[in-house]
């Protein structure tokens, strides 16, 4: 009986010692609204369309890959081919964040790498439908100018390509001629040229 009491008391004191030691440590909690912890670089939230520098806007070409791969079926993309352009542009991009599982598969498959994660963290709403996000909102007002630039760039690229093709053809022709001339020179028997 006495032994039991003693062991009990000892284990109680050992426990108290640990608690006592920890009581004087710095608190591990942070006072949220006043203190903010650093957000991880890999943080995942609702997906967003990332601005691409070379486009000056998002670069969603409505390929529909993300829509198809999404396990939660929460992406809706529609797009059109603007007048005089080869590239398609998205005209509608909606995500139902209430369904998204933040798996990142859509980011993996996007051929233009235009998807990323938002850094928001405190979304709240009264119903499911409050989490329907229209990802094109930040880009809508400049869409026309972006299209114009893209169109110009495309035309320029096409012209450059055409020029390059022409140049290449010319070079090839020149080379051929030179070859032909070369063939003639050493042999000296080019009778049909």
């Amino acid at each position, binding site marked *: 009986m006495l032994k039991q009491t003693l*062991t*009990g008391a000892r*284990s*109680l004191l*050992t*426990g108290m*010692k*640990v*608690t006592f*030691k*920890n009581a004087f440590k710095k608190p*591990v909690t942070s006072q949220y609204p006043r203190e903010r912890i650093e957000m*991880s*670089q*890999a*943080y*995942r939230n609702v997906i967003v369309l990332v601005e691409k520098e070379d486009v000056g806007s998002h670069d969603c070409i409505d390929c529909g890959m993300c829509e198809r*791969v*999404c*396990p*939660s079926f929460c992406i809706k993309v529609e797009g059109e081919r603007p007048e005089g352009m080869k590239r398609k542009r998205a005209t509608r991009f909606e995500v139902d964040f209430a369904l998204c*599982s*933040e*798996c*990142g*598969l859509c980011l*993996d498959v996007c051929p233009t790498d235009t998807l990323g*994660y938002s850094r928001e963290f405190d979304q709240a709403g009264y119903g499911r439908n409050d989490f329907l996000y229209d990802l094109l909102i930040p880009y809508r007002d400049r869409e026309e100018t972006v299209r114009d630039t893209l169109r110009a760039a495309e035309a320029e690229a096409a012209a450059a390509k055409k020029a390059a093709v022409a140049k290449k053809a010319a070079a090839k022709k020149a080379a051929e001629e030179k070859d032909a001339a070369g063939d003639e020179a050493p042999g000296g028997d080019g009778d049909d040229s």
Partner: protein
Amino acid sequence: MAETMELVPDATDPKTYYLNMGPQHPSTHGVLRIRLHLEGERILGADPIIGYGHRAHEKMAENRDYLQFLPNSSRVDYLSGMIYNLAYCQAIEHAIELDVPERAEVIRIICGELNRISSHLLWLGTFVLDLGGFTPFLYGFDDREKILDILDSITGSRLTYCYGRFGGVTMDVDDEFLRRTSDFCDYFKRRLGEFDELVTDNVIYQQRTKDVGVISSDLIQDYALSGPVLRAAGVAHDVRKTEPYGGYDRFDFDVPVGQRGGDCFDRHTVRMEEMRQSLRIIDQALACLPDGPIMAAKVPKRIRPPAGDHYFAVESARGHFGMFITSDGTDIPVRHKLRTPSFVNVSTMPVVLPGTMLADTVAILGSIDIVVPEIDR
């Protein structure tokens, strides 16, 4: 089934009665319901009734392609989601015979072991909380938070990771991650000593757990139990050792076993020792992390395992987690069966619980470390 659902107490015996423990009981860790047949405080019969958290993961797998099941995998068991997520990747890699770069393998092992520690910590905290100790719960959560922060820095999620991909992992680890992980290992080695002083050596805790809820090796054979429950009964079986997968054979670690024949205290000591072994593995992995790519060079666009059955098992924090995939050579599996350890472990309750006291039910149920979504899946 009809017999199980019947709730009318046995009217012939006025001394006994039925009691529903759960589905909202705090110590059933989720929505598990146990129908207890009691005589006073003594248990005559126990019937776990499951299915409250059923989310049809297996059925979902039959309706989507292999890649789309990826986010489901970590949600099967949200406490060791990383292990389950990576296990699914490994299962598919095994089926399509895809080799994973060494760096990715080692990163997977580090993350998996960190996840195992965090899962055991949560178990320790909630188990001691069930038995009436509040302090270890808070300490455990503090340490677990450190692990979650480390994993968050590469995966972007805290619980339901979707970090693995077929052929590798999504994000490479940086020096910061490695530094934080090794700092945590150093810190946690000391901290485990504190937990031992606070919990393992505590007399009240020992009295509540020693010789309570013995799950012996006979029962284990009948029910095919696994994980810490199996090792506590003295059987040194660990999938990481017996059928090494994902590069575990390169690491040096011991498989702890219980010394007292498989009571609640044994399950405690085994898990405590397992955390130490996990730290050992992480230490070795940090030391030998090779450079190189984190994704296999040639990952097929469409995942089509050859027709037939494929089985792959890993050691999760709760035991032998196996995936049985029947493929017909197309994009979508015909059948995807998940063999989850908690389901098997909880199925012994009708045998283990009768004869014990009501208060011990809480201890026994806590000590087998169930995760209800993983039972119901």
